């Protein structure tokens, strides 16, 4: 296990370097003068020259790349052209907001998706199975940004049940400790604010959870159907074990590996999906940060945002890979 973990981590090094190259290329592959593109057509020659110097674009590209890598190793993600602030400082609250949103979305997706898949397999070819699988198919085919807009229209505008945008009540701001507002409000004993945060979380997390939920449900159903046909399940049933335990204890354990892969992949993809959801719901997360950066052509922020999300994606996949061994001890990585 230890050797495998080390080998798996080492295999990430070329991937991470490749990622920095792609991200580095974002500015350098812009046709023409990047500084001109960033500042627009009306920029003065002086402003263009200043920005060129500021971004280090007047030096050979390989020196710029090594400088960039050096800065990354020191935790320096550059300076935002829009706010003039250091990105590594200003990105954290956004990252925390996205983390909170994606975590809640993933919890919803896993709980609903896995259970819907299990019940569909358990009562295969029943009305529940058909309805759940049709819903899953529709869920996979739905653009989440449209779903988000429809939720907003139905539950905020028409019914007035939930807030339309944002993360907190602006008239009663939350004093951030960890920037994870669910935790911060609890730490401060502000249960009224906690409820406000929950209300703000419901619509965006449901929108974000839809696609992974549908994919997890389909995958769980497929693997559970296969496992439930196996001999040991029949034996367990023949011994008179209750169906509930056969399904949730014996079958699920053996069906969980492919589901875990999907969960890992989907968690990473949620980070991409967050850009769209956060844009719709005015959620101040990293997706929104990137969206604003795109609108302002704030290339250092675009670079750092993409790199950070991709790095987290890679890290999640690594964790999922390592988790396999704990979930299924039959997997031996030492060989």
């Amino acid at each position, binding site marked *: 296990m230890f050797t495998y973990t080390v080998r798996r981590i080492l295999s990430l090094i070329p991937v991470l370097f490749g990622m920095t190259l792609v991200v580095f*290329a974002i500015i350098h592959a812009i046709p023409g003068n990047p500084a001109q593109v960033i500042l627009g057509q009306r920029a003065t020659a002086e402003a263009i020259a200043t920005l060129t110097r500021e971004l280090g674009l007047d030096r050979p590209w390989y020196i710029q790349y090594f400088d960039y890598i050096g800065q990354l190793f020191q935790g320096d993600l550059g300076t935002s052209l829009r706010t003039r602030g250091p990105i590594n400082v200003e990105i954290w609250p956004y990252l925390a907001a996205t983390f909170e949103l994606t975590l809640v979305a993933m919890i919803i997706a896993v709980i609903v998706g896995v259970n819907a898949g299990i019940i569909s397999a358990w009562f295969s070819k029943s009305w529940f199975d058909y309805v759940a699988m049709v819903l899953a198919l529709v869920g996979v*085919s739905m653009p989440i940004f449209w779903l988000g807009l*429809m939720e907003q229209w139905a539950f905020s505008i028409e019914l007035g049940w939930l807030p339309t945008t944002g993360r907190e009540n602006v008239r009663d701001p939350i004093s951030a400790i960890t920037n994870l507002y669910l935790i911060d409000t609890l730490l401060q004993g502000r249960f009224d604010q906690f409820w406000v945060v929950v209300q703000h979380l419901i619509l965006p997390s449901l929108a974000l959870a839809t696609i992974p939920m549908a994919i997890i449900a389909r995958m769980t159903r497929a693997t559970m159907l296969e496992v439930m046909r196996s001999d040991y399940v029949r034996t367990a049933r023949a011994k008179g074990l209750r169906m509930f335990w056969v399904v949730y204890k014996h079958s699920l354990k053996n069906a969980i590996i492919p589901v875990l892969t999907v969960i890992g992949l989907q968690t990473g993809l949620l980070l*991409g999906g967050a*850009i769209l959801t956060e844009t719709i719901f005015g959620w101040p997360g990293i997706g929104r940060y990137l969206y604003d950066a795109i609108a302002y052509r704030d290339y250092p922020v*675009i670079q750092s945002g993409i790199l950070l999300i*991709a790095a987290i994606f890679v890290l999640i996949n690594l964790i999922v890979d390592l988790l396999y061994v704990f979930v299924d001890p039959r997997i031996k990585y030492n060989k």
Partner: protein
Amino acid sequence: MAELAKNAADILVIPAEEKLTPPWKEALKSFYKNKLAVVGLGIVLFFIVIAIIAPLVAPYGFKEQVLADRMQAPSSKHWFGTDDFGRDIFSRILYGARISLWVGFFSVLGSVVVGTLLGIVAGYYGRWVDAIISRVFDVMLAFPSILLAIAVVSILGPSLRNALIAIAVINIPNFGRLVRSKVLSVKQEEYIMAARAIGMKDSRILLRHILPNSISPVIVQATLAIATAIIEAAALGFLGLGAQPPEPEWGKMLADSKNYITQAPWTLFFPGVAIMLTVLGFNLMGDGLRDVLDPKMKQ
């Protein structure tokens, strides 16, 4: 002796009704048995027909603005209502089908061509060629796809054409890996060794033998990828990185209408339904094709 030969001939004659059906006919038959797949095919054909005949059936032009008719609710005059410029949403959706299908087909075609070529070369030649191509794929797959698309469009600049290129680029590794793994198994087959033994050129082996025998999972994956590409194009359009005004791209229509959600929710409803139905059609068709062409992948 003559009698023996006659008996042998009798044995070898296959009765007409027992003749083997060609594989494509078998595949077609089992595809049509899958009701959901047929529904999917129906939806896809419906949107293709709409895209082709849009100028003939659309009651208004997609750019036609009647400011006096701004944000009209659905009516007999404007079936799906009008947007904030007084443009007919029904007509724009009909024209929008052209854009979405065009982006879907051609971006996937680009990914299939480049991905298949790279996958074949990596799988067939192995060694350092494989190592380099596979590492490039690893890096590309390390990015959530929409992010990589944003990165590519950030470089090229926002436009529909660049969104198409971005979607094509991000899907290359999916096809490349698929073909590579298939080629790795196909190249061990005896007929490939035989082809090599008789001195056939690599290019001929690759194009005449390995490619046709590695292509069926690609067809399945391509159908499903069109669905994803349509959503990705809409997402880029929604973020302002794809189609630019006044093009009636469905994602862009959603982005333009999101500020009028309170006054004119229909401007959001219909483009979203159009995206969902098209994507659903391709997903259903892709699932059906997978069951027929690649039963091992069936889950």
